[in-house]
């Protein structure tokens, strides 16, 4: 091989490695059709750390130092979308993550993530999540492309005070910006900070109680500019409810400031042999969002409040040699929110959303010449959404239902290499019209993973294709994702 060819090969390899350090999720679970209830690999273990992200359980959960590098790219497009949704999306994500066991009492976890999000042909919406729970939407009169990018940094530290009591801290920071390429040329500066303090208590040998308090403050500053290129002043429509808006032109800065508080309590129980694990979690979340314009003085727009109760239970049973695995997850979420006039105690909207969900799965491991694992998981979710928009005089009460079937197949080609296949089929139904939800559709997702497992590292190449197709007409939305994931142990 010539020197030049070796150089090209190096660049190609370095590029692939870099590109594939993207979305650092558990790609092994995803490659197996997201049948997470019954998959028993290390990244999908069931404990307080993975189930409720309690930093005070880091030492109990992680036994070795490791780092993960991953990169992913995804692209999707289609005409089956909601009013404000973009026609297509391109996401790039790069991640580095690692755990360091500092001593018998101390552990550290850190993650750096960088995302580049492209949203093409967004109709009017001037925010990344126009269908978030709050009713405020800012829109203009142009269709354009949005580009978002920014880093996230996340660190955790645990200190085990005594054998039965540990405390943990987590800090999260994200800064990013979004820019639309058409006038009003909004520029969104996104700042997000969260701090979490947690604790875990070993009540009995196999029973752990954990809890944490998490505070997050998020601020989105949106700068709207006058036209300087094509000589026009597009309008900004500032919705306080579904159909009632203010009309604005010119240059201004809008701020959305969100405070979130989470109170978490979780319990983990396992049997002596570790073949039976069960966890339960209860979260209370409280959100307060204020929106205002910052000029010579502050002009309030509207306030939004939400309370969320989350309760989840999950169990996993494994046979003695892990030949069979059985898992169940039950849970629910209740959201109650309202928005009110910025200066007067006048209710503009209120909304309650109740979600109940149940899933069960089973996996079999066959000891053949080439060992094979087959996982099957099914779930049902029921959501009722009760929305009262007093300002626009829109009142909606509807239910949503979803059925999902996840299948995964893990075929070991040899002790080191495996092929992972997954198929996810789903169906979503919407009882009545609501702009917030897509009409009835069927979902299909196919995943493929090529996994190399060595003693010191795991390397996985992941591919996914999905399609959502409307039941009533031929509209569809489809996309793909490719990722490379490396985990290296010390």
């Amino acid at each position, binding site marked *: 091989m010539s020197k030049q060819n070796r150089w090209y090969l190096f660049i190609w390899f370095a590029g692939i490695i870099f590109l594939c350090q993207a979305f650092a999720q558990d790609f092994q679970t995803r490659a197996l059709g997201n049948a997470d209830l019954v998959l028993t690999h290390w990244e999908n273990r069931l404990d307080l750390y993975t189930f409720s992200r309690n930093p005070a359980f880091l030492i109990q959960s992680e036994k070795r130092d490791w780092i993960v590098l991953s990169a992913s790219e995804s692209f999707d497009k289609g005409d089956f979308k909601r009013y404000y949704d973009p026609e297509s999306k391109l996401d790039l994500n790069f991640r580095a993550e690692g755990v360091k066991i500092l001593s018998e009492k101390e552990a550290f976890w850190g993650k750096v993530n960088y995302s580049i999000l492209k949203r093409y042909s967004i109709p009017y919406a001037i925010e990344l999540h126009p269908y978030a729970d709050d009713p405020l939407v800012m829109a203009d009169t142009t269709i354009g492309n949005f580009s978002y990018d920014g880093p996230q940094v996340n660190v955790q530290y645990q200190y085990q005070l005594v054998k*039965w*009591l540990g405390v943990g801290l987590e800090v999260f920071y994200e800064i990013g910006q979004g820019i639309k390429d058409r006038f009003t040329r909004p520029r969104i500066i996104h700042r997000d900070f969260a701090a979490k303090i947690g*604790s875990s*208590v070993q*009540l009995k040998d196999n029973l752990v*109680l954990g*809890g944490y*308090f998490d505070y997050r403050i998020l601020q989105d500053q949106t700068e709207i500019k006058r*036209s300087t*290129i*094509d*000589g*026009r*002043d*597009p*309008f900004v429509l500032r919705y*306080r*409810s579904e159909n*009632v*808006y*203010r*009309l*604005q*032109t*010119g240059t201004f800065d809008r701020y959305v400031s969100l405070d979130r*508080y989470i*109170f978490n*309590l979780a319990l983990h129980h396992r049997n002596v042999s570790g073949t039976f694990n069960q966890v339960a979690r209860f979260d*209370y979340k*409280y959100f*307060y969002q204020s929106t205002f314009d910052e000029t010579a003085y502050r002009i309030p727009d509207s306030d939004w*409040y939400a*309370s969320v109760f989350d309760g989840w239970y999950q169990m996993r049973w494994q046979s003695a040699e892990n030949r069979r695995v059985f898992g169940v997850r039950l849970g629910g979420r209740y959201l109650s929110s*309202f928005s*009110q*006039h910025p200066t*007067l*105690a*006048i*209710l*503009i909207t*209120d909304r309650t959303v109740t979600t109940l969900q149940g899933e069960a799965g089973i996996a079999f491991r066959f000891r053949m010449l080439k060992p094979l694992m087959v996982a099957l998981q099914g779930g049902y979710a029921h959501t009722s959404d009760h929305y*009262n928009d*007093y*300002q*626009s*005089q829109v009142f909606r009460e509807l239910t949503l239902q979803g059925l999902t079937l996840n299948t995964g197949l893990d075929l070991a080609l040899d002790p080191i290499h495996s092929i992972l296949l997954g198929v996810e089929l789903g169906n979503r139904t919407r009882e009545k019209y609501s702009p917030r939800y897509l009409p009835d559709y069927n979902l299909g997702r196919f995943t493929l993973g090529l996994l190399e497992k060595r003693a010191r590292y795991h390397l996985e190449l992941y591919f996914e294709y999905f399609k959502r197709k409307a039941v009533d007409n031929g509209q569809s939305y489809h996309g793909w994702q490719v990722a490379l994931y490396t985990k290296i142990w010390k």
Partner: protein
Amino acid sequence: MKKLVWLFVVLVFLGIGIFCTPEKPVVTDAKVKRTFVVYDTTGLYDPTDTTKLTPVANAKIILNSKDYVKKYVYYTDDSGRVNIDNILASTYEVNVTYAIGPGLMLVAGQVMEFYDFHEEVDTLLLTAVSPAPLVINEIYYCGPKNNIFFFFDQYIELFNRTDSVIYLDGMILGRIRSSKEIRPIKDTLSYVQNVFAYKFPGNPGEKNWPIYPGQYIVIASDAYDHSKTLSNAINLENADFEFYNQYSGDYDNPDVPNLTNLIPSKRADFLISVVSDGVVLGDGTSWELVTLATEYGTSDYINLPIETIIDGVEYKSGTTRPKDLTYRIDAGYTGVRVTRYSGKSVERINPYMDTNNSTVDFHILDHPTPGYKEE
């Protein structure tokens, strides 16, 4: 025991979080109720009523929200009452009109805050206005579609809506002053203050510059063929009049008569904002040049007494901009959604209609129509 204490502390902490959330308001929006009773105070509605406080049936009430893009229109019943229900909590510009006959109208207008959800009764007292014989029929201000900030082909169009000849001699066209100093008191002043004021040739009472019944008159910023500068700009070289600042090197078309500047310290041509402004037409019988100290230094203005103003029109592109022209001249505003350099124009829907409220009298044209009315 220690573990139980710890558990107790956590549960108390959780409880505090849950029970310290704010209460939801019990009053919901869009439930405001109001009753208006409209009275005529002039005796014109019912000359037989010597009390001069007569309930007016079929008076038109327009509520324009100052917070939202929302307008409500109501008509009074035979007892002069109208019950308004389920409207948004907001501040509204309330305009009432009742046409007595051609050339005479009863009007009332004020800004009212509707945030109270209890049944309340408001009395609106109508006063008489004579719709202007000469009206500002069209204002083209935003400039043609362009990316070089060109807006110099602005013009104002007048229309004689009577059946007799009117003479323009000595009349004054003014661009109103828009500032935070004058805005709060504009409805209490006996004059309209102008940053620019240009006078037609001649003096009031003279009869040299006629405008005939049904005739349109175009007054250009500069009577020039602007299409020579920008292909989609307007050719105004045949305008009827042009604004000419005799104190500067302003362009002057020798074939077009001039309106001349009344404020010697102003060296700029008569140009109006491409977004938001107001224009008034005075009969020229009275005006005063005043020098005022502002936060930017001293400046000269022309005060036109209210009683000398024949017509006035305010325009603004967005509903969030404050109103600058007193409701006694124009109870509303036109131009909402007309953006800079969009090539659009605002014109009277019907040149014979003048309710002193440009919100209802005007509409937006996709292109200017100098000297004619688009069919």
